């Protein structure tokens, strides 16, 4: 039985959960697809191992942030043993709330000229 949490309770997200939600924002993916997308989004700075990935997936399924899907983007080309995941409505709301939180932090940093200071230093 998935545990329902409010968006506020779920924040801030751990980096692994945030990256997985972001990777699934545009389409459903299997484990390796998620890993590749996270690596692409972060310019290879974040490469999750199978343990981290599936540990996070397990907790996200329990928190109803993602769900497993039977649909395949292209069943003819794909291995049917692969398990695909997609965002739930709750997952999408939590992701949006986290992006908003991070955006507010970036705005605060910009107001303090953090980036300008770093470039000047």
């Amino acid at each position, binding site marked *: 039985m998935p545990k329902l949490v409010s968006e506020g309770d779920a924040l801030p997200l751990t980096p692994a959960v945030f990256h997985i939600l972001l990777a699934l924002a545009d389409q459903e993916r299997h*484990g390796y697809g998620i890993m590749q997308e996270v690596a692409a989004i972060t310019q290879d700075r974040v490469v999750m191992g*199978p343990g981290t990935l599936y*540990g996070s997936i397990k907790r996200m399924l329990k928190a109803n942030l993602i769900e497993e899907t039977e649909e395949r983007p292209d069943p003819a080309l794909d291995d049917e043993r692969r398990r695909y995941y997609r965002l739930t409505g709750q997952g999408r709301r939590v992701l949006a709330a986290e992006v908003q939180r991070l955006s507010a932090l970036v705005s605060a940093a910009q107001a303090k000229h953090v980036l300008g200071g770093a470039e000047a230093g």
Partner: protein
Amino acid sequence: MLRLAERLYRILLLLYPEAHGREYGPSMLQLFRDLGRDTYRQGGLIGLLRLVARMLVDTAVNAAVENADVLVERSRIMTSQQHARVIVSATMPLMLTLFLSVMNPKYMLLMVAPGSAQPIGWLMTIAVFVLAGAAYVVQRRIFAQSELSAPDPAIDGRMPRLGWSLKRGFALGLSSVFLVLPAVLLVVLGPAYISVRLFLQQ
């Protein structure tokens, strides 16, 4: 080389709790296979060795987290008698150390010195390891009777080459590292520190 790495990863998967391995083991193995293939293509043998090293760390951290989760989850449904049995079995190495130290402090030093060629040092060290392993088995038998007698989960849907009992025994041996490690820290490193200090004071 890829097959060897995959076999090693299969063994590492045994460190995860049984239920986690059943649910996610095949997917994790598939992911490792994909990752290994691509890494080997791009980075050759060195790349693959780096990947295996990363997987060792990934497994050590995440298997510990998953095992801790299972223990916490199980502790919620334990009766007080089961709590007592786990505490007694898990603290056996510590109790042995304390008992021997109270009897005679020199036994603590003997335990850390199997290299001193004293039979009692070897015996005590072996006893601690056996007790730690026994503690793990007791814990398993209390909570996972059905898991122990369950049929082979056959990771990845194929029957393993090793026999089920051998594989199970190997998994138990590897998993008991989680219990042996604190025992080693308590029983070996602590007294070793004391002996070094005593040696320096002479």
